[in-house]
């Protein structure tokens, strides 16, 4: 076998790896689109309405678990199980934080978004994707800075970030289907 043939075979192997990555990415892309939409609607239209937020969060979790169940019919892996654990733990933490927020008053939006960032960073570690880990870290940093320095813009910027996440999730998902 010559070098050119070996190169072509390596190309076939990389193609196989890329196809597998897309299979994993499509689930994350759908989650990103769902939660981006929750943020865009929640922070954009009903930032102060607890009832509207509760409905959006329930819808978000319902869709996320439906997607997870659908994915599990075709693909089962240790990575998938770890991702399910990360996001289930996030759900429990979110619920606990919302209860605490009800009792203690304001301040929970930042904590919730730091939890979101942590869940994304953990997903990046599980998937061995540095870009996702970095995006989670930047999201945490941006949240802290805006919350501290531009508090009046916090909700509008979160709505904008949600819209961006929604569009990125759709784009990422469509690219993964190709």
């Amino acid at each position: 076998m010559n070098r050119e043939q070996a190169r072509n075979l390596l190309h076939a192997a990389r193609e196989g790896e890329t196809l597998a990555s897309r299979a994993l990415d499509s689930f994350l892309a759908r989650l990103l689109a769902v939660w981006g939409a929750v943020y865009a609607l929640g922070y954009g239209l009903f930032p102060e309405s607890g009832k509207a937020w509760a409905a959006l969060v329930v819808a978000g979790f319902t869709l996320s678990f439906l997607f997870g169940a659908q994915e599990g019919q075709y693909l089962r892996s240790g990575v998938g199980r770890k991702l399910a654990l990360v996001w289930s733990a996030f759900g429990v933490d979110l619920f606990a934080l919302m209860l605490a927020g009800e009792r203690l008053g304001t301040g929970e939006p930042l904590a919730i978004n730091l939890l979101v960032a942590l869940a994304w960073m953990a997903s990046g570690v599980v998937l061995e994707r540095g870009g996702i880990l970095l995006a989670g870290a930047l999201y945490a940093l941006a949240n802290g800075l805006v919350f501290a320095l531009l508090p009046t813009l916090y909700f509008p910027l979160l709505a904008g970030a949600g819209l961006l996440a929604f569009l990125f999730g759709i784009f990422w998902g469509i690219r993964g289907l190709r």
Partner: protein
Amino acid sequence: MAFDELIHQPTRLKLMAYLTRLGPDARVEFKKLQRDLGLTEGNLSRHLTKLEEAGYLRVEKGFVGRRPRTWVGLTGKGRDAFLAHVQELERLVKGEGA
């Protein structure tokens, strides 16, 4: 030399790369594998049989609800053979072998 004649075939190489990337304990449903790799049912079945006979894959039948499903996963032997084969290809591309 770690060239593996069985994995050497491009479709089987792509299939092994796909399963290796998903992780050591991953299992994929037959139809998804067929769709993602763009293969016909018969073609995929033939490749899977050869790889299973060599002990590189495990094929399991099961049910999701009432629907029968076929799950495909990589064995440790298959993973080692694939990684060694790719290493050998990379060595050749770098000009360290012939």
